[in-house]
């Protein structure tokens, strides 16, 4: 995790700011401008780390309490990263939340292209919905929002994180679950 600062072998979340109501509203407006979506983030506590990463947690979570805890590794889920040009690069979970009501900056792909995207490869066949070049787009297949991509000239760069990528079947290894 690059969400925090390394200290004695563990990462701690370095929360720069817990967003207030006005900041959250601005964030919702930013998402609306960019993706044309209606997202209600007031149901969450939203905070930003020193690396401009946006995280969300349930309202029941007492963030200052856990932030000050010596060995708190992580709170809530990673929503997306705020870029310098005021754009937001969304995680898969962030994209899923936004994608339900998004109307712009979207790229629709076919089922054949889904595998390419999930493996972290560029996608060359797509249909754009009100998208700007060199901008983040929501990648969708039918009703599923798959995540975020970067629209380049002639292709979409997959932004699926390495940990979430699907490995090619030939190179795959059996996955371990519930390992103790």
């Amino acid at each position, binding site marked *: *995790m690059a969400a925090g600062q390394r200290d004695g*072998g*563990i990462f701690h979340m370095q929360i720069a700011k817990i967003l207030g109501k006005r900041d959250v509203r601005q964030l919702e407006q930013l998402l609306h401008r960019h993706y044309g979506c209606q997202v209600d983030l007031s149901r*969450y506590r939203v905070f930003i780390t020193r690396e401009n990463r946006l995280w*969300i*947690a*349930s309202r*029941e*979570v007492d963030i200052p309490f*856990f932030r000050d*805890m010596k*060995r*708190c*590794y*992580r*709170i*809530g*889920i*990673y929503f997306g990263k705020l870029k310098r040009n005021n754009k937001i690069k969304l*995680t*898969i*979970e962030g994209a*899923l939340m936004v994608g339900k009501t998004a109307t712009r900056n979207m790229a629709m792909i076919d089922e054949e292209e*889904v595998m390419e995207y*999930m493996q972290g490869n560029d996608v060359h066949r797509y249909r754009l919905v009100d998208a700007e070049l060199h901008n983040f787009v929501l990648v969708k*297949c039918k009703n*599923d929002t*798959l995540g975020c991509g970067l629209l380049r000239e002639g292709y979409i760069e997959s932004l699926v994180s390495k*940990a*979430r990528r*699907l490995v090619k*079947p030939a190179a*795959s290894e059996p*996955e371990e*679950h*519930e*390992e*103790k």
Partner: protein
Amino acid sequence: MHAHCIHVFIERIRAMIPDAEALFSAEQEWQSIRVNLLKIGRDELVERLHEQFEVKPIPWCEYGLFVRGNIAKMLEYFLGYYHIQGASSMLPPLALEPETQEMVLDMCAAPGSKTTQMAMVMERGIVVANDVNIKRLRALSHNIQKSGATNCIITNYDARFMYKQGFKSRAILLDAPCTASGRIIKDKHRLDQWNYHRIQHMSNVQKMLIRSACECLEKDGVLVYSTCSLEPEENEEVIAYALERFDVEIEPLSFTGIRTRPGLTSWQGRRYEGLERAVRVWPQDNGTEGFFICKLRKY
């Protein structure tokens, strides 16, 4: 070494149950998944999976499914619509009833199957998921992110000494690290690692863990202790240790739709009072991995 291990292992199982040989003939052809209700409805997922797989419900868990086939390479898995989880490992969170809790402390949470299961059903409430191992913490973190559960906090304490940090909770899940002999049926290579010294070592660690859990438990709070081990030293012995030293009592457990057997009341000359109220899940009874579950309440 392997042949000797099997012999000793079988002898021990034979001393516990009359149908020890049936253990190795347990049907294990179905994989089990848990629907992530935070992202998709059960019926919708069933409909999607039905196109490629044979799917049937897990009788004891309304959001659990048995699936035949390789389900780890599906789009739905990539998107976190389901989590691959042992069918009997869905039982400890059911025993804890997290939906009624404000906060649950999951002391040995990685890799996070039970954590995300609890987080999923808690409408208002949080899960503090703890694990000592940094590598396993990353797996936990990954699974929580993938589940989309916003009500989880991950901490990195040694659970054996968490009580020294002043942690208090009315609901604790202690799914203790164990020798995982209940999974030997699924993964026969585990027999190579099986030996009595390891069982004793794990038993000592588990006693330290349950001690810490009992100290962290508030009055009238509930603690669910579970392992995927079949060894009495890691199960009944640990509970007996807690009953002797702390103000806790066993609450009866019952699950519908799954065949369970009571905990052992004696083992190698030691008697365990009240342990018949604990639950053992044997692999041959349901075609799942073996499990031990016990619910304690502090008085």
